[in-house]
């Protein structure tokens, strides 16, 4: 009985793992899109501190990729 329960729980966790990784892959694509949009907007309007926006969007993408890698390794 314990073996069946363990098998069931492992398969649920595996499904959960796949879902998390899929979600993070999609989110990483969204982060890339955000970076592209920031680049496009900073080209359209040149402002004094727009380099900070570029920095934030790059940082966001790096964070997203980092979380993706961590999830693949840890889970």
């Amino acid at each position, binding site marked *: 009985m314990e073996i069946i329960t363990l098998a069931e729980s492992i398969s649920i966790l595996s499904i959960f793992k796949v879902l998390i990784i899929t979600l993070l892959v999609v989110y990483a694509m969204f982060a890339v899109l*955000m970076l592209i*949009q920031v680049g496009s*907007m900073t080209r359209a309007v*040149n*402002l004094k501190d727009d380099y900070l926006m570029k920095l934030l*969007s790059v940082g*966001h993408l790096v964070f*997203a990729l980092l*979380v993706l890698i961590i999830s693949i390794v840890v889970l």
Partner: protein
Amino acid sequence: MVEIYRRKPKANSKELDENKESGKMKKHGRVSVAKLKTMFKRSGYDGLFSCYATFPPNTYFKDQEEGEEVVLFLRQHVIVMVPWVAMVLLALSIPSAFKLFPPFAGLPGGYQFVIVIMWYLFVFGYALARFMGWFFNIYILTDERIVDIDFINILYRKVSTAKIEDVQDVNVESSGAFQTFFDFGSIRIQTAAEVPEFEFVNIPKPDKVGVIINQMVDQEEQEKIEGRVK
């Protein structure tokens, strides 16, 4: 309270034709900019959280013509960011309560860690998207045009322009205790251009901006009558 500013009647074509014939129609290099600088002193600052600045030195946009100068740079008042900033701060404190939920508490340690950092990632992404929405939603007045850059969301942006000479009506609106206390409101500009209406939403000092727009329209009319073209 809604204040309505009405333009003076347009100069009649007879006056303009007379100026042309007498040879008064000659090219001047952006005399209007120098005059505007004497009318409106440089004020505000053009930093990261700037929402009002006259003649900002480091601001240019893509279709800006040579010699065209940005007279007024506007964004929505900083106070409009308070609701979502408060929500973000609240969201950042939520992971400490995750362990109170049995489904989360029953997960292995690795899963708990990943879920927590995912939460922080999504909150950061939300905050960045909202800040981008404020940062890139810009209203610009140059000596020749009105430019409205609407950054609706990550996937949709709109840039509208109209000449100052096409402006017909300027309506200033600032209602409620909150807007009155923090001195922000909205301006609706009716134009004869392809885009019939521009709306500057939740901008600081709306009364002053309304006055500036009307003075610029009058200045443009005066230049036409006197026969000066760019």
